[in-house]
């Protein structure tokens, strides 16, 4: 029963950790707007965590610059299992307009397994909520598989 409780709760309280990997700040602002009174992701249990150790979902924005790459990977490693990685916007998926630059190491999927891609430049807050809800479902499945 305790396992069942944990499994149920895992999908209902996903905490977010946001990594800016050289983003233009557009996606960062849209992600924060998801937590504002207008969209209020907290009603679905989402909360912005201060430390990667507390997080369940890692949201990466930006095209993964050479400077940020080792930090991004280290931060992601510090997130305890089960975890879910969400890329937000086009940049971490492909590099977008920065593609081919000497200082871009993306896409992120070259280095870690990305669970959910939220496309858009920047995505609408509704799309971000969709993506995070999907990530929460994936978290629950991961927990179920781990048991």
């Amino acid at each position, binding site marked *: 029963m305790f396992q069942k409780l944990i499994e149920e709760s895992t999908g209902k309280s996903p905490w977010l950790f946001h990594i800016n990997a050289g983003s233009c700040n557009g996606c960062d602002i849209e992600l924060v707007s998801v937590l504002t*009174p*207008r*969209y*209020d992701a907290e*009603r*679905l249990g989402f909360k912005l965590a201060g430390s990667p150790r507390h997080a369940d979902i890692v949201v990466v924005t930006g095209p993964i610059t050479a400077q940020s790459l080792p930090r991004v990977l280290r931060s992601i490693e510090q997130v305890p299992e089960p975890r879910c990685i969400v890329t937000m916007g*086009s940049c971490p*998926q*492909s*590099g*977008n*307009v920065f*593609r*081919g630059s000497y200082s871009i190491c993306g896409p992120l*999927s070259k280095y870690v397994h990305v*669970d*959910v*891609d*939220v*496309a*858009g*430049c920047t*995505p*609408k*807050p*509704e*799309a971000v*909520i*969709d*993506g995070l*809800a*999907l990530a929460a479902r*994936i978290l629950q499945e991961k927990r179920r598989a781990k048991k």
Partner: protein
Amino acid sequence: MDFPFVKEAISQLFSKPSCAMYPAVESVAAPRYRGRIAFDPTKCINCMMCERVCCGGAITHTVEKTEEGDRITRSFNLGCCTFCAHCMDFCNHGAIELTQDYHMIATKEEDLIVSGTFLKKPPVKKPVPPKAPAAPAAPKETKAEPGASGSDLERQKGEADVKSSPKAETERSAPVLPRDDGKPVQDPAKCIYCTICARKCPAGALTVDRAAKTWALDEDACVACGTCASVCPKKAILM
């Protein structure tokens, strides 16, 4: 100490929250929102203008040669797109449209690719050579045009000068007619050899020499997209 939000907090406690209850209540994007790309392959003529103007490099195509012609698959990678709508604006045939759909969530990269396949038949004129009487028209025009104007200086002064010259008047008496295969024709009386059409041509089919005042069309490369006609500042190209 000063608490400016005391009244606000208490009044909000007893009033309705201002949340958009998104997953429960569907929300529609604003009109002319630039979301998921819709591609109509039946309208596409493979002019490649969209691929040229795409700043993210999101548009690619693959060509598969078959007996009937080339099967061209044009794909739009939404994971690389900036949703600037340049492709939509530049498409002369309205094959690309950015819809209001913003639900672009994917667990696999393939989910974010919009693509369409169409068959491009080989040029009709090749199997039917007599259908190309229009083809010599282009060299004729280029040959005719040195006589159309007096000197370089006179030409640069503009159209008004050309009209005033009697030679130009005679030239205009034989009007340039649009070709029936949809490819561009130059009207030497109007052309100022600015080379904009050559620069804008997505297929690189036009060669314009400013000094020699020649305008040449590569019949095989031309895809009849109409870009040259729409960019011409003097409306000197007929389609």
